[in-house]
């Protein structure tokens, strides 16, 4: 199995790595870099749990070769809070305040997908939220709550930016 030397930029930090060519991004994030915030539920692109942001747009990290991540800005859930102060991102705050999670496994993927949605569409309707997150499965059935959290987050972010 040949290894390739790559540099992955994750949450603003460059990591020099030697990875198997067939290694997926999620495996390299979790096992090589040690960022275990990205979770694995199905490992074959069916559940959205492993979602990270690549150049700001959502991508399934289990369905991407790690080597394909070179030259791109990768953001995992660990990179969402303010990297200096540790302050939670407004979406994270809303999920905390309104209990937007149960077991928490789908939560990182949900939050990042929601962030990408709100960045592109600052005033999503409920239908648009549900559609945008339709590839993220929650076995704990928290769909109603998560939808509310995303709508509230969008509202909070809008109000914050208009101040």
């Amino acid at each position, binding site marked *: 199995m040949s290894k390739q030397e790559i540099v992955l930029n994750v949450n603003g930090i460059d990591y020099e790595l030697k990875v198997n060519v067939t290694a997926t991004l999620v495996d390299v994030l*979790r096992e090589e870099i040690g960022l275990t915030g*990205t979770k694995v539920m199905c490992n*074959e692109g069916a559940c959205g749990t492993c979602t990270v942001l690549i150049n700001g747009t959502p991508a399934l990290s289990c369905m991407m070769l790690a080597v394909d991540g070179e030259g791109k800005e990768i953001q995992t859930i660990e990179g969402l809070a303010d990297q200096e102060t540790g302050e939670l991102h407004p979406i994270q705050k809303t999920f905390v305040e309104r209990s937007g999670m149960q*077991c928490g496994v789908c939560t990182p993927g949900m939050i990042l997908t929601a962030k990408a949605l709100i960045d592109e569409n600052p005033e999503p309707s409920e239908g648009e939220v549900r*559609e945008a997150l339709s590839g993220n499965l929650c076995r704990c059935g928290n*769909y109603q709550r998560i939808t509310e959290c995303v709508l509230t987050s969008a509202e909070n972010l809008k109000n914050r930016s208009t101040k």
Partner: protein
Amino acid sequence: MTEQFSVLGKSVKRKDAIEKVKGEAKYIPDIQLPKMLHAKFLRSPHAHARIKNIDTSRAEELPGVRCVLTHQNVPKKHPQRKFEFLLDETLHHPGEEVAAVAALTPEIAEEALKLIHVHYEVLPAIIDPEEALNPGAPLAHQEYGSNIYKGTQIVNIPRLEEDGWLRLGTGDVDKGFAEADHILERTVESPMQYNCSPMPRSVICEWAGDKLTCWADTQLPLFLLRDLAGSLEMAQANIRIIANYAVGGYGGKSPEKTATLAAIMAKRTGRPVKAVFSRAEDFIGTHHRVSYKNYNKIGVKKDGTITAIYSKILANWGSDTVVPYVCQSSALLGACNMLYRWQNSMAESQGVLTNILGYGPMNGFGDPEAIYAVERLVDEAAEKIDMDPLDFRLKNCMRYGDKAMEYEQVMNGPIEWGILGPDLDSFPELIERCAEKAQWKEKWRGWQTPMAVDAYRRRGIGVSIGMHHTSFWPASAIVKMNQDGSATVLTGAVEIGQGYGTATAQVAAECLGIRYEDVNVILADTGAAPAAIGNVASCGTSSPMNAVKIAAEDAKCKLFELAGPRLNASVDDLEAKDGGIYVKGTSNSIPIADICFTNWQITGTGNNPPYHSIRDEKTGKVIHAYAAAVTIVEVEVDIETGKIDIIELTSGHDTGRTINPIIVENQIDLGLVMACGWVLTEEYKIDPKTGILLNPNLLDYKIPSFLDMPDSNHFNRVVSERPSAWGPFGAKGFSETSMTALGPAIANAVYNATGTRVYCASLTPENILSELETRKEEVSN
């Protein structure tokens, strides 16, 4: 009702929220230990086979492999309450473990599995449970001698009769049927369902000398502890199970023998061993919801009185189970002594062994499976007498004072009927409130009258009630006061995602009169916390949390005893609030922190009172622990494709006392989404010849998504709070109950929409279309 509390009844932030939104919560697969090895399992490709020869030499020689286990080099032990051994020479279902490998990386371990050569002698297998009862059918377990389960050397079900049937009844069903104006009967199967925990099963075992630490994704640390201690022949005291951040088990999630095998490999290699199942492996190597073939017969009078019910349940056990007869006991109650005021009832169940993966408990534990059939037949009975199905439920549903029993008595005896407590007057209340919320009176147009017809689309409305026990079991808890007046709660319960730690902290904070933020809950660490079964059977709120309340009250008593002399007051005149001990009605107080600083041995302990000590004041009878549910659903059916869409959903649940409203709502949603998946989209497809699961992946096993559930404008939750006789502040677990009513409600709504009764198990489009066509043919014949 909740205004008198300071923290109870409030939607406080969850204790585990911040780490979960930051990705810092360390679940078992996230844990990395130095020198850790990775375990993988070789699994049987056959439903029934004997290992004639197994050669692991090439696997052992593969660089990076440190240990290989087969039936030849592990002790012959039964994992708790099971037929099979840890690793067996004879394999009884596809996917059963044949060998285990521990290696430096998961990839090397996988590679090693390919190098293990096994010669199987394929044995005759039995897949279909009805065929399994035919004389001459292959035996699922050849040494057992029968495909009817009757207990084993280590499992005894006292009330299981000689003929292999477990029975329960009241009154006289023959008399009841004789009195009926109409008798109806029906056979309906309930489908299997895969638990689909968001994280596949995982465990890490590490030894320090002769002491074992096991990080286990389990909701049952107590059982796992017994299991490990028994299999490894060691004292429970020397095993520490840590199960924080267990993940959505939805019933019975535990590593079972995976933990023991990992522990053995860790011992032999001197290194920690981690086993993480792949998703496909989790499908075939854990357990699933049992499937029942339900035969029901019901007698009704013209005025809507139910005179009798008879139920016969054939359960497809698969090859083995961790919970022999537990689900059926619950189901027997579901089939004859729950939901309605049955005057005369009889239910019997038999467990049939087959060579498929064995069943285990899953959300609802036998009740949704039985209620799925009963509530559809009840709907037919209501139609027979031309009574509004909602009025029928309202007339007959159980309430305070109706006879009830705890399901363990069904298995073990003695049969002693108690009653439902005043909290179950929530049943009629929920029916009425849900009816109002769902606008039933406006939307129900009568039998055989759909709400709307538009080309090939039909719209209909249906109702069902549901019920489930919320077990009150032994549990212990400790509340220790820290020197600054904050409190640490030690409980054997498990946070499986439902917000358990949060609610527990609210209860303790409320009792102690301190801030919620100043309570920390240590869960699921058998080295630190006293015993509780864990979280299963909706016992969490009822049982371990109740013990926590008792422990907090105990700690408070000790605070009072220390504060009294300093405040010049007797303990009866004291109260705890706002972080201080106050003389009631005055501002005379001492900060709790003050008391704790000088008296740091303040530790409260709590043990639940025995179950039978919870008695009704009026009658002296034991009050049994149940929760009620009512679901009204509107569906749209495409009668050409068979597709069902949920258009409006109203569901009512009783919580006893709502500790945290958001958490309650989240739990209601869990049951509803799971029920939606169970009957509409999730198909557990087993090959009828080989017993192999054909769709062990999430592309082809479809759990509901955001788009499969109605949006907020079409979804209502109704909550009733009538404090139960047990449980902290009267709160009770109800999350399984929320699963019980939606399935049959959908079937009943499909009838209203299409005018066709569907009797299929899964309500998938293909099945619905087939049913519509079959009934059409029957009518024209």
